[in-house]
């Protein structure tokens, strides 16, 4: 059984393939989306534990998807990832409710630890809410 299901949103096919391979080796279940539109459609169909979201997408900014997730599925964790350097988008993402902001290129270890940490925080928060 998968540890968690993750929606991976990035327009780079190769990167999606490599991230998928890296995460599937650790028993994560991955669903891919190459654009904002597809991501929003996927989010409408099913719930995810975590969304790995690129900021620069062909049909708009990933921040739009982040806003939608924060509104529709507040329990879903969103981790932003971007290749661009700069604080503007990082600050906007955190304000809109992203749990983390990672910059490309990242190593597989770094990505796995960041996801693990985010899921652990989510579990802790949910545990506290139920107790």
């Amino acid at each position, binding site marked *: 059984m998968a540890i968690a299901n993750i929606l991976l949103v990035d327009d780079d096919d190769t990167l999606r393939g490599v991230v998928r391979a890296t995460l599937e080796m650790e028993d994560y279940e991955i669903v891919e989306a190459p654009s904002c539109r597809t991501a929003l459609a996927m989010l409408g169909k099913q719930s995810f534990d975590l969304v790995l979201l690129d900021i620069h997408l062909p049909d708009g900014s990933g921040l739009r998807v982040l806003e939608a997730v924060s509104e529709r599925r507040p329990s879903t964790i969103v981790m932003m990832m971007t290749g661009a350097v700069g604080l503007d988008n990082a600050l906007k993402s955190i304000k809109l409710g992203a749990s983390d902001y990672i910059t490309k*290129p990242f190593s597989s270890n770094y990505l796995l630890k960041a996801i693990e940490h985010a899921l652990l925080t989510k579990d802790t928060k949910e545990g506290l809410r139920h107790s």
Partner: protein
Amino acid sequence: MLSLQRIQKKVYGILDRYGIVIAGVFIFSYYLWTALDMFATSHPRKSFQGYFFQFDSLILLWLLLVAGLKLHEYRKKQNNENERHRMIALEYERQKMQLNLLDDVTTLLTDAVNNPLAVISLSAGSIRERFRTDDEVLSFLDHIDGALKRMREVLADFHNYETKKIINSVATRPSPRPGNQQSYPFTQPSPVD
């Protein structure tokens, strides 16, 4: 209204070019007129006091003309200063626009380069995981990691350089004179991990 302004502009232009000549002609005309007037009077003998009072306003006239010329000079200087400020503001805006464009290009470039770098980095990580005991493969992977680190540093340097230029352009207004533009060396690489 418009023609009045045009006339005023023309008068100022003539004053600018021939101010001293006009002042000289004015004073010497007055002097001539006063002298003629003096000799035309019916009293042929005049005391020193008489001569002095005949030309007393000449000194005042000189002083007035000097004051007028100084005032005109001051106004001209102020106009030049205003024009210089306007040029500085224009140049500042132009440089700001150029730097913003450069920043956009840098952002797009780093984004485009960092995606394939992430693919290389993640793939290297997966290979390392699979060949944990093979020293030869691990040594090659170390080379890849080293190259990746260097590329990250170059990109970070490039971005820092652009950011520094933008911050500096906002903090200090550049002079419009050529040769007053500063260049900034690349910063020392910062650890990115």
